[in-house]
């Protein structure tokens, strides 16, 4: 592995603050990290509950009980302890459905992010390392992609491909890469003139070897941070597509389609729409906190 400039940057960052403020800065940093750690802890709970859904969910998320439809949450009048968050329009247990719904969001979020990070990092490395015409072409492509609102592009492609989970992962993965490419390109630009890269080139290393063995290891921090933050964005987008009925199809529980179905009943039963949305909000919130914490921890000077 190359001598890590990210390590030097961190070290410089630690030495830099003037003596009187150093303690205060350290405390503040710890204070910020506290949010990150808290976020990570809650995120772990979300992940575990999704993984353990078959074990922990009190009811079958698909079992219909028409006699107990639209039962309000336990703490309201008419609620029962049997259904803590109430039931939906055809009597399915809302808590169980919210727990199961997390599976889709997390699987889609993580897979799409892996896909788009891979594409984006490759494009970014190529643009930053080779510069010139390669850079120009890739930057043009990035500009075109970024011009489209992510939502619009994803919608248009889903419209043609038809809604399904694999299609959604492909679409979100393939349309999401410019974010990574832009950041990695800028970082690679800065690295390619550094001594260790010049030395590697002087030693006659192949381009591929320099890119993947010398440059890429130094870009792990920004990639991890951006990918973490992007999971939240992808989850929101996936939910939106499912909300419109263009994503995960009922009866499979997903936060988005539950929200879409619940919206019809918001006049009488607000909880059907409220809780799936709350689950999306909490999940993306803790992912963002975690991502920000990671950034502060890995490299407080990172400009993202």
């Amino acid at each position, binding site marked *: 592995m190359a001598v890590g400039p990210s390590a030097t940057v961190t070290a410089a960052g630690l030495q830099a603050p003037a003596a009187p403020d150093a303690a205060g800065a350290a405390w*503040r940093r710890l204070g910020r990290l506290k949010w990150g750690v808290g976020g990570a802890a809650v995120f772990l709970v979300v992940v575990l509950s999704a993984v353990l859904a078959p074990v922990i969910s009190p009811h079958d998320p698909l079992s219909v009980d028409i006699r107990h439809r639209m039962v309000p949450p336990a703490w309201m009048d008419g609620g029962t302890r049997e259904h803590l968050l109430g039931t939906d329009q055809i009597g399915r247990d809302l808590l169980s459905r919210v727990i199961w719904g997390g599976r889709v969001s997390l699987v889609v979020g993580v897979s799409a992010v892996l896909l788009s990070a891979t594409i984006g990092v490759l494009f970014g490395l190529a643009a930053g390392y080779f510069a010139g015409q390669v850079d120009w072409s890739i930057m*043009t*492509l990035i*500009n*075109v*992609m*970024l*011009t*489209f*609102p*992510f*939502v*619009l*592009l994803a*919608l*248009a*492609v*889903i*419209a*043609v*491909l038809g809604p399904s989970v694999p299609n959604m992962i492909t679409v979100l993965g393939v349309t999401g890469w410019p974010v990574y490419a832009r950041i990695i390109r800028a970082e690679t630009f800065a690295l390619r003139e550094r001594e260790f890269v010049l030395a590697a080139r002087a030693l006659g290393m192949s381009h591929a070897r320099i890119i993947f063995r010398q440059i890429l290891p130094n870009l792990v921090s920004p990639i991890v941070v951006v990918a973490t933050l992007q999971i*939240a964005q992808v989850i*929101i987008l996936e*939910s*939106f597509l499912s*909300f*419109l*009925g*263009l994503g995960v199809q009922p009866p499979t529980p997903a936060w988005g389609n539950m*929200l879409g179905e619940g*919206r019809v009943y*918001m*006049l009488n039963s*607000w909880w059907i*729409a*409220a809780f799936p*949305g*709350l689950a*999306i*909000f909490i999940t*993306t*919130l803790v*992912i*963002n*906190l975690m991502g*920000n914490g990671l950034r502060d921890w890995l490299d407080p000077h990172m400009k993202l």
Partner: protein
Amino acid sequence: MRRYLVRQLVQLVVVILGISILAFSILHIIGDPVTLLLPQNAGKEEYVRYKHLMGLDQPIWIQYWKFATGAVQGDFGRSWYGNAPAFRLVVDRMPPTIYLTLAGLGVALLIALPLGVLAALKRHSFVDTLCTLLAVAGQAMPIFWLGIMLIIIFAVRLRLLPASGYGTWQNFIMPAFCLGAFLAPITMRLVRSGIIEVMNMEFIKTARAKGVAERMVVVKHAFRNACIPVITVLGLQFGQLLGGAFITETVFAWPGVATLTVDSIRNQDFPVVQCAVVLLALIIVIVNAFVDLLVGLIDPRIRAGA
């Protein structure tokens, strides 16, 4: 200045070309219009006949050329569903989308400017922490959920505002707030970091040394200079803003381009989808170019560099 303009223009043309290729390939390369248009039980023979009839058996670049020359003249074909020109349908739905976007932008600035400035001037204070929390929460908020919650609270429970629809100023309040809440966090961060950066500059020290009142330093010197990065990024964010408007529209049944697009997707009406995608992207490109130009005019450093 002329070189700057030429460079901007070349980039504009290239991006528009790219958009048209992307919009074309979504329907013609990823999907197959003939299978989408014909009924499921259509035979092989009919498939071939229709393919020929629609000119889809020609080489792909000829098809693209036809699409592009038509598009330049505002001809995106007829809607498969409503039998009206796709272009007309989309353009008719444009004004509500634009009004909503502007209203959302207004709300976002109304929230972000004062909070961002305050957070920058009183760093690490209560206001600053509050702003950071608000920004993090705002970024995680799915606006379609926020919209639904607003409807439940203000329309269903309190009966203060109409749940959906278009026409009166009351209709604007919830959608505009929703969209504003979507854009405000990032704008607030930008204003904050912009002001912090500017406040550390030499000319601020000079102004203070001259004895200019602190309020005037902030308003006249710092704020104006902090506006440049804010305008730039707001311009770049315009695409996101339209994307947000898109989401907001579908929640509040706003009769704009987004509702039309989603309906068209449900009806498999692809000329309309294609037309909406191209026109929205075009608007974004033009706004971006305009913002670049504006910033170049305000700040000579940008004209000279990059």
